[in-house]
C-alpha cells in the first residue's frame, strides 16, 4: 500500500470518528429530552395528545430509510451548514437520523424502570422536573449509556452511507477504492477498522454502564 493511500485511510478514519462522535453527542442532546418528554407525557404527567404527537413523529422519521433521508435533507443541510458536501455537512442528516432512534430507545429504557419508583417519587412530593432530575435519570443511567452505545454503533453504519453522497470517511474510502477500483485489500482494511471501531464503542459503553450500575 502506498504512502498516499495510507494517509488517505488515516484521514478517512479520523473523519468517520469525527462524524460518529459529534453526531452521537448531538443526537443525545436532542434525543434525551425528546425521549424523556415522551415518557413523561405517558407515565408521569399524562398528556395523551403530546404523547401521540411525539410518538408519531418518531415513527414517521424512523420509517424513512436513512439513505433516502440523506438525500431528502440536502436542502436543509445546505441551509444550516452552507453546503451539502463534506464531513461537517453530514452531521445534520446523521444527527436528525439518529435522534428519533435514540429517543425511542431512551423511552424504552425508562419503561423498564421498576413500577414502584415513580409512585415513590410522587409520595416524596416531587414535581415532574424533580422526578426526572432526582429519580428517573439517575436510576436509568446505565440503560441510557447502553442506548447511547447502540446509537453510536448505528451512526458508524450511517456515516458509511453518508460517504456515498459526498460525506467522506471510511464509507467513502471503501466505495472509491474498494468498489470502484476493485482494490480488495483496501476494502478489507476498511472493514477491519470498522469492526475494531464498533468493538471499542461496545466495550467502552459496557464498561461505563457497569461502572454506574450499582445493582
Amino acid at each position, binding site marked *: 500500500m502506498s504512502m498516499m493511500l495510507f494517509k488517505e485511510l488515516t484521514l478517512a478514519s479520523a473523519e468517520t470518528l469525527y462524524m460518529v462522535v459529534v453526531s452521537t453527542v448531538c443526537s443525545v442532546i436532542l434525543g434525551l429530552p425528546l425521549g424523556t418528554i415522551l415518557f413523561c407525557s405517558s407515565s408521569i404527567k399524562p398528556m395523551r395528545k403530546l404523547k401521540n404527537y411525539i410518538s408519531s413523529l418518531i415513527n414517521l422519521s424512523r420509517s424513512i430509510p436513512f439513505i433516502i433521508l440523506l438525500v431528502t435533507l440536502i436542502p436543509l443541510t445546505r441551509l444550516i451548514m452552507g453546503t451539502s458536501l463534506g464531513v461537517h455537512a453530514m452531521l445534520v442528516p446523521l444527527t436528525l437520523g439518529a435522534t428519533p432512534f435514540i429517543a425511542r430507545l431512551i423511552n424504552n429504557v425508562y419503561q423498564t424502570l421498576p413500577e*414502584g419508583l415513580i409512585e415513590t417519587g410522587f409520595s416524596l*412530593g416531587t*414535581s415532574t422536573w424533580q422526578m426526572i432530575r*432526582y429519580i428517573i435519570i439517575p436510576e436509568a443511567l446505565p440503560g441510557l449509556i447502553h442506548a447511547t452505545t447502540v446509537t453510536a454503533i448505528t451512526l458508524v453504519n450511517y456515516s458509511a452511507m453518508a460517504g456515498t453522497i459526498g460525506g467522506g470517511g471510511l464509507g467513502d474510502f471503501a466505495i472509491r477504492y474498494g468498489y470502484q477500483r476493485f482494490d480488495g485489500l483496501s476494502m478489507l482494511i476498511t472493514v477491519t477498522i470498522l469492526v475494531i471501531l464498533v468493538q471499542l464503542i461496545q466495550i467502552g459503553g459496557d464498561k461505563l454502564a457497569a461502572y454506574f450500575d450499582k445493582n
Partner: protein
Amino acid sequence: MIELIGLHKCFNNTVVLQDINLFIQQGEVFGIIGKSGAGKSTLLRTINLLVRPDQGQVVINNQNTTHLQNKALCEMRHNIGMIFQQFNLLQSKTVFDNIALPMRIQGIDKATIHSKVTALLNLIELEDKIHSYPASLSGGQKQRVAIARALSFSPKILLCDEATSALDPETTESILMFLKKINQIYNITTIVVTHEMDIVKKICHRLAVMDGGKIVEITSMVGLWENPNSLAKKMLYTQLSPTLPICLSHNLTNVKSNRVLLRLLFHGSSATTPFISTMSRKLHLNINILLANIDRFDGYDITGVTCGILVVELNATSQLLEIFIQHCNQANLIVEILGYVNDVV
C-alpha cells in the same frame, strides 16, 4: 387528624372504594386489614392522593386536601411519609443519598441534610452502611433505610403499604417494633395496611376491616372483645388456631353421641382462671384437650387483653353437655360445637 369522608373510587368501571368514612387520630397506629383486592392499598393511597377519589373528601389537619394541585400537592406530600412492600429505594444511590433525597428535593442546605441523615442512620442502627448501595443490603436493612427516608422530612403521618410482607418473620418483628418505637418517639400517626392479623395485633391501637372496597368494621384492639359479631375477633381467633387435623375432622358427624368436640374461645379474666380443671371436678367430666393456644394484645394502655382458644373433647351426656355450656356462658367463654365423634378418634 385524618378524615376520610364518603370516598368512592372506580378504576375502569370496577368499584374499588365504596362509601369510605374514617377518622384517624393524631399519634394513633391504625391498621387496615383485608384480603388482597379489598381496596386497602387504594384507600391508603387516597391519603396522600396518589389515588384521587372520584367522590368524597380527604381532610388532613382540618384542611381539605382532595383537590390540591401542583405545588400545594407536593407540599402536602412532604408531610406524609410512605413505605412500600418492595422498599423502592434508588439502586443508583448510596444509603446516605437515599435518605437525603427528600431533603434535597425540598432544597434543604447541605449541613442540615448531613446532620439529619447521620441522626437517622443512628436511629435505624445502620451507621456502618452509610456508603453502601441498596443492592448490598438485606431486606430488613432496605426497609429500615426506606423508613429513614420517609422520616427525613419529619412527617406527621407515616403510611405503610404491606411494609413487612416481603420480609421473614424475624425481620418483620424487628421492623414492627421499630415502627412502634418511632410512633412513640415522634408521635407520628401511622397507618398500616396488611393482610396479616398478626401485624395488626402487634402494633395497632385501632383497626378497620375491609372487604370488597368497603369498610365492614372499625374497632379498637381492646374494644373488639366486647362485640360478639366482630369480624376482627374472628380473624384473631382464626389466626390463633390452626384448622383441626384431617384425622380428627373427618371423624366428626352431626349425629349426636356422648363424645363431643367443642371449641372454646376465651379472653380477659376468663383466660386466667383454671376453668377446665374446675369443670372437670365439679361435673365429674373427662375433658380431653386436643388443641390450645394463648396470646396477648396490647391496647392504648399497658393492661392489654389475654385471649386464647381451646379445642376439647368431652365425654358427656346431652344433659351434662348443656350444663357445661351454661357454665361456659357464665364464665364469658364462647362455645362452638364442632361435632360428635361416633368412631374411635
